[in-house]
């Protein structure tokens, strides 16, 4: 079963709940693959204190100019939507590599074939197993995450590559949990394509409500079954989220209170354990006996 953990707003606890749920499911003798798809700041490996092993580079096309063939026509610069190729009359064009997203349009547009396909490393995929074996069975829980190169903007390619890597090994696992970035943008959508269930993690604040409505709208369009988790449920105004739940007809399946003990574990680098997350885990396993779909 594939479950996306999302929510719209940043800082609601997506990663905390993803890691905790992964730990609970793994403790119940399920094989769990946790995928951190927030490639701009993946932090599940910090929360779970895993080791860090690079398993794949993520590369994209980078045009390389062969000056001997270049006619100085400027077509490559004209077609580049990212403004990554600079052409000044009577000079050779040059490429601002950090701006290039690897679409390859310039290579197609070059009539003299002066641009060749080079490669640019834009990120990598890592895997990690928990180092604290007393807490988490490393047999049962594997973490995969994507990391974008600092300063690089082509994040979608890294998200997609991470998803693809996970898809290739998903059949060995009972549960695949995908921790998405905040927001409702392409990278969140890519992370959630093809999941069986989405858990929208929110908080009882006006912003939490606002962004929850956006993500629920998106999930409705994607036709993904969705349930709401309210984190920090005892601060703020829970009515805000109750209203959304009622209006959108999406159930609130769990509430996690704002507790000192949770913060303590979090800041010690331990996965947060809480009775309500255990209940959540149980609800998921009860629904999908055997796990595998």
């Amino acid at each position: 079963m594939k479950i996306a953990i999302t929510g719209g707003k940043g800082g609601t606890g997506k990663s905390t709940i993803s890691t905790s749920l992964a730990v609970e499911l793994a403790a119940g003798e399920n094989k769990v693959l946790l995928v951190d798809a927030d490639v701009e700041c993946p932090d599940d490996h910090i929360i779970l204190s895993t080791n860090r092993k690079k398993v794949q580079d993520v590369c994209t096309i980078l045009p390389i100019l062969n000056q001997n063939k270049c006619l100085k026509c400027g077509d490559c610069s004209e077609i580049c939507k990212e403004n990554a190729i600079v052409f000044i009359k009577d000079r050779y064009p040059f490429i601002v590599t950090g701006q290039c997203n690897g679409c390859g349009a310039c290579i197609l547009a070059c009539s003299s074939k002066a641009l060749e396909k080079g490669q640019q490393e834009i990120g990598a995929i890592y895997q990690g197993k928990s180092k604290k074996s007393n807490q988490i069975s490393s047999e049962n829980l594997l973490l995969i995450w994507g990391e974008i190169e600092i300063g690089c903007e082509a994040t979608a390619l890294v998200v997609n590559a991470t998803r693809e890597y996970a898809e290739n090994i998903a059949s060995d696992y009972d549960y695949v949990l995908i921790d998405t970035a905040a927001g409702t943008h392409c990278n969140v959508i890519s992370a959630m394509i093809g999941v069986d269930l989405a858990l929208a993690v929110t908080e009882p604040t006006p912003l939490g409500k606002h962004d929850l409505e956006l993500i629920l709208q998106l999930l409705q369009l994607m036709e993904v079954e969705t349930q709401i988790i309210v984190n920090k449920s005892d601060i703020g105004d829970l009515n805000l989220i109750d209203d959304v739940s009622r209006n959108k007809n999406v159930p609130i399946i769990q509430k996690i209170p704002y507790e000192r003990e949770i913060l303590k574990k979090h800041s010690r680098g331990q996965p947060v354990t809480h009775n309500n997350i255990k209940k959540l885990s149980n609800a998921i396993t009860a629904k999908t006996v055997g796990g595998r779909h």
Partner: protein
Amino acid sequence: MKVAIAASGATLDSQASPVFGRCSHIIVVDIVDGDFKDVKAIPNPSTTEGGGAGIKTARIVGNENAQALISGSVGPNAFEVLTQLEIKTYQMVQGTVEENLTLMSQGKLDELHPTAPRGRGLGVGGRGGRR
């Protein structure tokens, strides 16, 4: 010497622009013995670019064969382009285009160094959405 300046309007009495990539106009002037000749105001089409506005604006400066640029700031990508084109950049002072050009002709403007880290311009097409 041919000098380009990022401006907030099309005339010499417009304010100099604190931003480069999305400034309203690039004004190009030939400074000859302290006189401003061949004044040309080019509307900047990059103001609505999602990304790479600075690069595109630097191209305009390059196409005008300017030897120097005056601006309030220049992003790292634009700075890379200007460096490749051997165009020196100078830090504007708050005031009009004319005041800045006068200071420039007197050699009283400081050289400018790049600001923000690469790939994190002011892009209006922000891909984050995080709050």
